[in-house]
């Protein structure tokens, strides 16, 4: 059965409806879980259903209320959105399964389910929307629920860290509104496709872009980099991920930073650092340097961490650098690599956080100094975490490898300057250091016991639910198993990612799908849209009407 293209809004409406429904039954946990899992399964199958044509190169669009593109709100489902949406639903599903068995009743009663669905709604909305202001709204939906999830439970420690995240993101939102407003003031539209068209037109002899355009672009880059936790803007992340319930940490780690990466992957090549504006824009250089610093400094911070959660959070931050380098290279292959890496990293990061949650529940701590010898007690957990760690490192049969390979191949292109080769070298160094981090973590958790004593004898009693690790294992297996499948059969993901980024800085298919067949012409500047002809006609009529008054 093939639904009409307008139904792609279901991916936004479904989580929203679920959030509303679960609000009314918030004391009945079992019912909320069933509703939530059903809704996520439904949106997972919907996104897979649309991903199949989208991966073939089709761009599915829906114009809200029937208003034509640059005037109305556009929702776009192409291969890039589709891949990220599918893995989002998958991560959401696993986190919810984990939460069902592990969350303390207190947290679960405090609106966990409605908030988690609102978070997923915001993430889906940001992947689907086709204009800059709606991206802002989507970010806000996502952030509002993440603020609340961050404080769920309301312990003293959580609250003392929460303000950092909230205040920083509020400043980011302020910049986003200002930047979106300025973009509108300069280019007269907010629709991605129309923006791409104006920018491309300016390169082909159309009206020049205002001199302040790179400034606005940098402002928006700041916002996206803050969301993605790029090097100088990452300091909020380890503190906040440290204090949340583990299923929330998995959701945050898997989804939130990837939304920032997506925004850059979508908007930089198309609009803000398009080939047309690269001449006088520092953006590519900023992104490349930030990528290099993120991956090297981040992984060194991860080396210093003594708790599993913090080490995972810092590794996650460091690995944002890889897709960032792919974006900076801005060739279809490198951006495809960035997309492949982001999609698999969603699964792996969330899976590793869930494994860390199982470790915490078994051993009572995530402190590497106190852990040890867990392999004897939970051999399957040890296997899971080893596979996850190897995927994180990106060793060849595992999923992290392919994206990095694609990015590296482009970075070593002999026609590029030596700076790119330094960055490629940084990727390799960062990968090697990740191996050290992961090996240290694995050995500390599963093998070595401090002072030869099995640490588990003295484990603290766990204050949450202790019974039933089955759900936790199922969810971790789902995510890690998914990443293993990607690793063993990367063909589908790689080829559809290449479809998603095949156009690079010339998004012809995207623009024509959104704006109509005539929208992207070689001349660009003289391109006409049916809607503008209608507008000109209306102006003539308007003139006479006005005169009659």
């Amino acid at each position, binding site marked *: 059965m093939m639904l009409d293209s307008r139904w792609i809004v279901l991916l936004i409406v479904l989580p929203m409806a679920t959030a509303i429904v679960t609000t009314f039954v918030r004391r009945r946990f079992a019912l909320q879980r069933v509703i939530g899992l059903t809704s996520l399964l439904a949106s997972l199958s919907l996104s897979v259903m649309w991903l199949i044509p989208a991966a073939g190169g089709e761009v599915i669009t829906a114009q809200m209320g029937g208003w034509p593109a640059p005037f109305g709100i556009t929702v776009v489902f192409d291969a890039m959105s589709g891949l990220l949406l599918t893995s989002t639903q998958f991560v959401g599903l696993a986190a919810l399964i984990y939460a069902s068995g592990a969350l303390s009743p207190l947290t679960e009663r405090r609106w966990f389910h409605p908030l988690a669905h609102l978070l997923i709604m915001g993430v889906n909305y940001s992947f689907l929307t086709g204009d800059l202001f709606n991206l802002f709204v989507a970010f*806000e939906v996502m952030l509002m629920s993440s603020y609340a999830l961050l404080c769920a439970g309301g312990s003293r420690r959580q*609250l003392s860290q929460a303000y950092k995240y909230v205040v920083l993101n509020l400043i980011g939102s302020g910049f986003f509104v200002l930047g979106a407003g*300025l973009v509108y003031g300069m280019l*007269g539209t*907010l629709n991605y496709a129309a923006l791409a068209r104006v920018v491309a037109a300016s390169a082909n002899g159309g009206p020049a872009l205002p001199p302040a355009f790179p400034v606005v672009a940098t402002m928006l880059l700041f916002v996206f980099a803050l969301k993605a936790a790029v090097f100088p803007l990452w300091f909020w992340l380890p503190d906040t991920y440290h204090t949340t319930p583990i299923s929330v940490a998995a959701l945050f780690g898997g989804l939130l930073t990837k939304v920032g990466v997506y925004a850059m992957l979508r908007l930089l090549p198309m609009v803000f650092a398009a080939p047309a504006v690269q001449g006088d824009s520092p953006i590519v250089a900023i992104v490349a340097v930030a990528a290099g610093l993120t991956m090297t400094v981040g992984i060194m911070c991860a080396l210093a961490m003594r708790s599993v959660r913090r080490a995972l959070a810092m590794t996650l931050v460091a690995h944002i650098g890889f897709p960032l380098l792919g974006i900076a290279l801005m060739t279809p292959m490198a951006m495809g690599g960035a997309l492949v890496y982001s999609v698999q990293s969603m699964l792996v990061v969330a899976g590793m956080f869930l494994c860390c949650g199982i470790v915490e529940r078994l051993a009572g701590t995530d402190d590497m100094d106190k852990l040890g010898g867990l392999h004897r007690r939970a051999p399957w957990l040890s296997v899971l975490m080893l596979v996850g760690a190897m995927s994180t490192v990106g060793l060849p049969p595992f999923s992290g490898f392919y994206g990095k390979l694609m990015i590296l191949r482009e970075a070593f292109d002999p026609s590029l300057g030596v700076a790119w080769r330094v960055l490629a070298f940084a990727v390799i160094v960062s990968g090697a250091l990740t191996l050290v981090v992961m090996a240290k973590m694995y050995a500390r958790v599963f093998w070595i016991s401090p002072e030869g004593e099995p640490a588990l004898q003295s484990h603290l009693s766990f204050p949450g639910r202790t019974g039933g690790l089955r759900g936790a294992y199922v969810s971790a297996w789902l995510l890690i198993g998914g990443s293993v499948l990607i690793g063993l059969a990367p063909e589908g993901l790689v080829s559809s990612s290449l479809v998603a980024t095949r156009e690079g800085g010339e998004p012809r298919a995207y623009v024509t799908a959104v704006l109509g067949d005539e929208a992207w012409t070689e001349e660009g500047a003289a391109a006409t849209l049916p809607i503008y002809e*209608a507008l000109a006609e209306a102006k003539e009529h308007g003139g006479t009407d006005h005169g009659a008054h």
Partner: protein
Amino acid sequence: MTLLLAICVACVLGVSVYLILGRELKEVAMGVFLFSHAAHLGIIAMSGQPVARIAGEAVGLKTPPVLGVGPTAGVDPLPQALILTSIVISFAVTAYLLTLLVVTYRRTASLWVDDLAQEGRPGEPVWTDGAGEKGAA
């Protein structure tokens, strides 16, 4: 007019940055609220000439296609719609941030950034999947 608005935005932004750099969370919160006001003021100034021109005619959303009156007969309504949306969002966020500050103050008895930084030092194990009960004590 644009210059006047620009000066206003600059002043409000300056004050808000000064407040955000404060060491107490109430000041920081006030600074953040002012920041969003500055952003909204900035958008108001955005109703000038659009860049995109077709055959000498400015096109884009900035010439509102009001039927029967003509595209040049009114003020561009879109920045106002943007501001309205953004104001609603910042209302909600303001309410949330103030609530967070009240709750934080009740739990930690301080809103000074230095005091709060003491709480979050790494090293100790954190209980979060069931932290509420313990933390409340």
